Structure formats: structure tokens, C-alpha cells
């Protein structure tokens, strides 16, 4: 990425500017460097007990395990490597509920969780587990009183994501942990969008299980982890059986280079988090101000304060999201509009916030990250403002709004 190029007209970059850091992140070159020896030089199976190849690989995996544990304040023996947060979430939910189903058959989660949590919960419901899906407040945060009221003596697990992937809001983890601890319920959090972005401490926050994703924090794709508390011990069934690796919780040969990559990514994030947070906050605020100064009727979805610095989710009234994305083709972003989803349903997260459908269709999610430059932000502001203005000129809804028509009063002929 050439940060001194003037991005205009014929000089527009061949690849769009990447502003979709919640979808995935590029693997940090330092992480790739750390991984490479384990493909061709130290390629041994870390479970081979009898020779140097195995010992070298094992040492690397255990070092990585310590690095992962460090960034969340855990003990290395509490880290189980998995193929990613989806697997970790599956393991946490299904593993815990299946283990406890005879005595405690109820779990609680939020309507705004990632699909892998919601779908796993639905699957458990088909098996007879009782699941409560709590709504969220308009700012995207859970209502702690509603959570307290939902817990019964049959509740085994509460699963609430630390940071939401669409709107970037941060849930009150310590408070949730405290409530769960008091009631003797396990607290699982999907922290895929949180690890490396906000400080996390499994003990201070009373977290019992935590899902971690490698490719969300500049690590490689295909690796993640599940933190499983040892004291007091969390009991759960494995999903994948075999040689008994990872204390029997997740069989399979550990992919040494991927584990090393996850570890290194965590170590870098832990070191650089304070400085990175400051820089991303500055860039995010610049993006938001640039857009709001130039355009009226732009709405932020989700709480601004309780939010990771790298996320901005904005609704541009009277302009549809997919149409808008086509107009900013030099920017890679995503939208909560129905038109961008295969199912034609608008974002369920935005709907859960109470964002009306028509505004959900007008939303864009901007994800900024480690490699985003100020110049890219300024270019993004220009592009977005120009595209929104052009599309508003073409929009019958904008026209009505300008003419003082109350759009809500119109009877639409839906088909």
C-alpha cells in the first residue's frame, strides 16, 4: 500500500482501500515471519514425544499458548487451541450444555450475538435445551436487570459477546461476570472482536469461557482458542474426539505455525494496544467528523463511548446501502442493508437496536485498523460525501424530505 500516492481519478489504487477490519485483518508481517520456520524447517508434530522435531514444535506451541493466555490474564493451562472462534463458540455452548443437561438445562444469550452463537443455540433448542434470547437497549448494550431476572436455578450458562462485530459496542463484562458469579452460572463471552482491542482480564471480569479468533487481530486465518477456567473448574464435553490433545477437549494435531501466529499476534497486540487505541480513536473521530460536517441526517448506530475505536456504523438517511457501496468502489466497507445479504433481510443487529428498517437499509460499517492511514481516511470522507450527495439527488425519499413531506405518513404499496 503506497501511502504517498494521490488517490484521484486515474491514480485510484488497483485494490480498494481496506476499511473492513471487522470482517478480517491482514496478517501482520511480523506474525508471518514468526510462523514461517514452522512450515519447512521446524515442521515436526508437536505431539511427537520422541525426537527433536517434535520437541521443537511443542516448545513453539507452548510458548504461543503462554502469549495467548497473557493477553487475557489467564493461565496457559486454560487455553485450548481451536480452528477459530466459530469452533470455540460451538465448543463452549454445546460442550457446557451437553455436560450439564441433566441438572441444568437453561442458557441465556443476546439477540445480537454472532450467527455461530445464535445458530448453536438454536441447534441446542432442537435438542431440548431451553434458551432465552435477551433483547438489547437502543445503544446495543444488555440490560443488566433483565439479565438478572432471566437467570433461574436451571441456568447453566450465560453467553454474551464482548464486542459486537457490526456496531463495535462493548458489553459491561465485569458487571455481567459479577452477576453470573453470584448466581453460580458460567459466563462465556465471544471475544473475537475484543481481544487485542480492549484490555481483557478473565479474573477481574469473572469470565469462565472466552472465544478468541486469530484473523481478527492480525493473526492467520484458521486458528483460534477457547479459554476454559480451571479454578473453579468449568466442566464441558468435547466436540471433536480422537487422540485426546488439549486435555481431551479438542483432539487433532495442533497446527504449529498457526498456533505460533496466534501467539505472536496476541503478543504484538498486548504491547501495542495503548498506542494503537489512541491512533485508531483519532482516525475514527476524523472519519466521523469529516462525514457529519459535510452531510446532514447521518446517524451513528450503537453507543459511541462504549465502543471499540476501530468501528463506525453509520446510517445515511434516504440512500440505500448497496447502492452507496457501488458509488464508493475504491473503498472496501460493508453494509447492513438487505440488498447485500443473500437472504434479503436487513441486519438483525441493527433491527435489535430498534433501528427502523429503512435506516437499516442505509447503513455502512467502516472498520479501521493497524494499517489504515490518515490519507486513506480523508479520501474515504471525500468519496462517501460525494456518493451520498449524488444518490440523494437521485432519491425520491430525499426529495420528499426536502419538500417537507412526512415519509412515515405515506401508505406504501408494498409488493
Amino acid at each position, binding site marked *: 500500500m503506497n501511502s504517498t500516492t494521490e488517490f484521484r481519478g486515474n491514480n485510484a489504487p488497483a485494490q480498494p482501500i481496506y476499511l473492513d477490519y471487522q470482517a478480517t485483518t491482514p496478517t501482520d508481517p511480523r506474525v508471518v515471519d514468526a510462523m514461517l520456520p514452522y512450515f519447512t524447517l521446524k515442521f515436526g508434530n508437536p505431539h511427537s514425544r520422541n525426537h527433536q522435531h517434535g520437541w521443537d514444535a511443542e516448545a513453539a506451541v507452548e510458548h504461543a499458548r503462554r502469549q495467548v493466555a497473557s493477553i487475557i490474564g489467564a493461565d496457559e493451562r486454560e487455553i485450548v487451541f481451536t480452528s477459530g472462534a466459530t469452533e470455540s463458540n460451538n465448543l463452549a455452548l454445546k460442550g457446557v450444555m451437553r455436560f450439564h443437561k441433566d441438572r441444568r438445562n437453561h442458557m441465556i444469550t443476546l439477540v445480537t450475538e454472532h450467527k455461530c452463537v445464535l445458530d448453536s443455540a438454536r441447534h441446542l433448542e432442537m435438542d431440548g435445551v431451553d434458551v432465552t434470547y435477551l433483547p438489547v437497549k437502543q445503544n446495543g448494550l444488555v440490560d443488566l436487570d433483565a439479565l438478572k431476572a432471566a437467570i433461574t436455578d436451571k441456568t447453566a450458562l450465560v453467553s454474551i459477546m464482548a464486542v459486537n462485530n457490526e456496531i463495535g459496542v462493548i458489553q459491561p463484562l465485569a458487571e455481567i461476570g459479577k452477576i453470573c458469579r453470584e448466581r453460580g452460572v458460567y459466563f462465556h463471552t465471544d471475544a473475537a472482536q475484543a481481544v487485542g482491542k480492549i484490555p481483557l482480564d478473565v479474573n477481574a471480569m469473572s469470565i469462565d469461557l472466552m472465544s478468541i479468533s486469530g484473523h481478527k487481530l492480525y493473526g492467520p486465518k484458521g486458528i483460534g482458542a477457547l479459554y476454559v477456567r480451571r479454578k473453579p473448574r468449568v466442566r464441558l464435553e468435547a466436540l471433536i474426539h480422537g487422540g485426546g490433545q488439549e486435555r481431551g477437549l479438542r483432539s487433532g494435531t495442533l497446527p504449529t505455525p498457526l498456533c505460533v501466529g496466534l501467539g505472536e499476534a496476541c503478543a504484538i497486540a498486548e504491547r501495542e494496544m495503548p498506542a494503537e487505541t489512541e491512533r485508531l480513536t483519532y482516525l475514527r473521530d476524523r472519519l466521523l467528523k469529516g462525514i457529519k460536517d459535510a452531510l446532514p441526517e447521518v446517524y451513528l448506530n450503537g453507543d459511541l463511548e462504549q465502543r471499540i475505536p476501530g468501528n463506525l456504523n453509520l446510517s445515511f438517511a*434516504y*440512500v*440505500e*446501502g*448497496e*447502492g452507496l457501496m*457501488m*458509488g464508493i468502489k475504491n473503498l472496501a466497507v460493508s453494509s447492513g*442493508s*438487505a*440488498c*447485500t445479504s*443473500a437472504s*434479503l433481510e*436487513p441486519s438483525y443487529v441493527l433491527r435489535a437496536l430498534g433501528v*427502523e*428498517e*429503512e435506516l437499516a*437499509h442505509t447503513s455502512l460499517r467502516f472498520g479501521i485498523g493497524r494499517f489504515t492511514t490518515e490519507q486513506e481516511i480523508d479520501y474515504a470522507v471525500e468519496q462517501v460525501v460525494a456518493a451520498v450527495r449524488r444518490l440523494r*439527488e*437521485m*432519491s*425520491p*425519499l*430525499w*426529495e420528499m424530505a426536502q419538500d417537507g413531506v412526512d*415519509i412515515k405518513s405515506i401508505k*406504501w*404499496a*408494498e*409488493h
Partner: protein
Amino acid sequence: MAYSTKLIDHYENPRNVGALDKGDPTVGTGLVGAPACGDVMKLQIKVGRDGVIQDAKFKTFGCGSAIASSSLATEWIKGKTLDQAETIKNTDIAQQLSLPPVKIHCSVLAEDAIKAAIRDYRAKNAQAPAKAAS
């Protein structure tokens, strides 16, 4: 979404964006869709005394496919009689733009918009001689 060049062309260079005077008796206005669905099209026609569509304008709130479908619709109906314009099928629009299956409904809405504009014009000119009445 990987769109056809024709579709992208209609999106980048939409034909006939704008508005005609709703109050003008020679203008028919069709407003279809719903904001909650993410698709709203306003299509207007100016019809001459001979029943031929002299001008057409559109405004659309919707995705690239919706914008392109309505732009193409205005292009096609100009110079046609009302009866001819009514025969335009969404499948023609979809084919011309190579709409992906998940976007076919945008072409349906465009066909609805044409018909709605014609219906509005006819309703306003119900007293007008023979051709328009049926």
C-alpha cells in the same frame, strides 16, 4: 456483487434522473415499493396528446440493480405509446441488465413503476378521448 457492464453503466450514468411537475395534467406519476423494503421507485411520464410518452424521469432509493432497472425503464418508454409501454416485462429488463437471480425483484418493481405511472396518467385524464380509456 459482480454486475454486468450495462448495469454498471446505468448506475454510473443514469438516464433521465429528475422530476416532472406532478400537478401537470400531462404528467403521470408512479410511486412504488417501500422504504422498509429498501426499494422505492418514483417514475414519471409526460404524455403528448397523441398518447406518446414524450419524456420520462425517475428517482430511486435502492441498490445498484434497482437504480439500473428504473433508469433502463425510462429509456425504453420514451417515444412509446402508453399501450406499448405497458407491454414492457420485468423479464426484458432483467435480461438486458443480466440481473442476478436474487435481484430479479428490482426489475419487477420497475415494471410496476411504469404501470403505476400510466395508471396515474389515465386516472387524471379519465375524461380524455378514446385511446386512454378502457
